[in-house]
């Protein structure tokens, strides 16, 4: 064990964060202000998600941390180690075995269940921020449901690119009320937000927490004649041949060769273990 209080934060702070989480769950999509603490990592490295995870974890929990879908990148490894040291909880890389999953910019491919909690790291919680810089005004717009401006952004996308070019952090409307930033997940993941697990969003620098309760309707904004489309690279995974997963493009050499691999490493590994073979399987092995 460590000399830290369980999960690093003191109990009063966790209480404060839990209150914000409960309020967020009660008002789906509403950004609840909270007194974000200094964490032993820089802003932008998931301080909001870490605080929400710390307030959510119990000693019996099993934690999984992913960064852009991967379990083995710097951010994921360091946060997983952080909670191994400060909370002593079990950790896993397998989506099904985790009870709390902290994520940066992806939703796992495997379907989540009712007994799981998904914690998102959020850089900018306000979906209207780049359209309206004043916080007083954006709050008023949320309060009065004045969301026309959000569609102006999508209109501009279509008029400039011929299609809605926003491909990540694609705005959604939660429970028919609040327009919400889904954190910078690819829009491929948006439809998955109608899920059985609890979704919690933490923005450390911006001091906001919001939440989507299980089975809550999450609708991606669009136009009647330009409907929302969950897009991904039009390839199968080169390692596990999955056609249904979100892919990362990896440049292999200076000759322009590239491969597409599942961004969800756990999903890809479990498929390969089950015997699925992709175009580059032998070389990779």
């Amino acid at each position: 064990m460590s000399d830290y209080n369980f999960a690093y934060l003191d109990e009063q702070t966790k209480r404060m964060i839990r209150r914000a989480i409960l309020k967020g769950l009660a008002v789906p999509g509403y950004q609840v202000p909270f007194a974000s603490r200094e964490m032993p990592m820089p802003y932008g490295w998931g301080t909001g998600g870490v605080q929400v995870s710390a307030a959510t974890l119990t000693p019996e929990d099993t934690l999984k941390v992913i960064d852009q879908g991967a379990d083995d990148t710097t951010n994921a490894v360091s946060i997983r180690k952080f909670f191994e040291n400060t909370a002593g909880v079990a950790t896993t890389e397998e989506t099904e075995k985790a009870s709390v999953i902290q994520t940066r910019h992806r939703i796992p491919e495997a379907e989540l269940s009712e007994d799981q909690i998904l914690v998102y790291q959020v850089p900018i919680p306000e979906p209207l921020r780049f359209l309206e810089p004043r916080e007083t005004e954006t709050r008023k717009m949320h309060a009065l449901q004045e969301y026309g401006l959000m569609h102006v952004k999508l209109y501009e996308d279509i008029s400039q690119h011929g299609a809605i070019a926003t491909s990540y952090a694609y705005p959604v409307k939660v429970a028919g009320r609040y327009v919400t930033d889904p954190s910078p997940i690819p829009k491929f993941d948006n439809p998955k937000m109608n899920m059985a697990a609890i979704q919690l969003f933490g923005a450390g620098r911006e001091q906001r927490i919001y939440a989507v309760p299980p089975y809550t309707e999450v609708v991606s904004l669009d136009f009647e004649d330009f409907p929302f489309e969950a897009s991904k690279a039009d390839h199968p995974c080169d390692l596990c041949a999955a056609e249904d997963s979100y892919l990362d493009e990896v440049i292999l050499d200076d000759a322009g060769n590239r491969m597409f691999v599942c961004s969800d490493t756990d999903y890809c590994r479990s498929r390969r273990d089950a015997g699925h073979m992709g175009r580059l399987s032998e070389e990779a092995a």
Partner: protein
Amino acid sequence: MTPLLQVKNLAKMYGARIGCTDVSFDLYPGEVMGIVGESGSGKSTLLNSMAGHLTPDRGEVIFDTRADGPVDTVTMSEPARRMLGRTDWAFVHQHARDGLRMSVSAGGNIGERLMAVGDRNYGNIRARAADWLGRVEIAESRIDDRPSAFSGGMQQRLQIARNLVTGPRLVFMDEPTGGLDVSVQARLLDLLRNLVREMGLSAIIVTHDLAVVRLLADRLMVMKDGRVVETGLTDQVLDDPQHAYTQLLVSSVLQV
């Protein structure tokens, strides 16, 4: 006939100083009212108080709403007032950049009010934006250009299109021709006059330019030190001014 807008004893104070006070008038459908006066006479304060941009300290601004008939907009709920501001009301600012989103294309600017009242069909929004560009004499090919690439006169016309696209019944205009050169001014006035006649708009125009009200306004209100000193038909007030200040105002116009 019910007046479209009834203003009763409207007053706005800035601390102990008077912004405007004791203003009362009725505006009927299709009528254009001009408000003239020198800088600091309270005409912009009055306009902003009527349009809900400033909260008046006393008085009523009763608007004949489509759904509920005459309602005092000062005491109505903020969502309802803001909804009115996007549908039945329009506000044309003196400086086009106050009324436009400079980082959004002309089409997006015009479409914003449509999307704000729930239009979710891109083709439809774009068609109406193109139609309105035509009506304010901006080439349709400029639909995807940003207002920052437009001349001052074009920006002002774009602002008018953006405001009128939802078919408002009452337009507030704050010096709509200020800062434009005379030939551009003339075309803008022509355009405004046509639109007002065609759409049967009521309008309240604040200006210090007597020629503008002579062309556009049916009725005239002269303000001085926050109070209305003279009202009447435009031609009557301009040709036979009664109040000393109005006489000064009329005689101060430079002749070419």
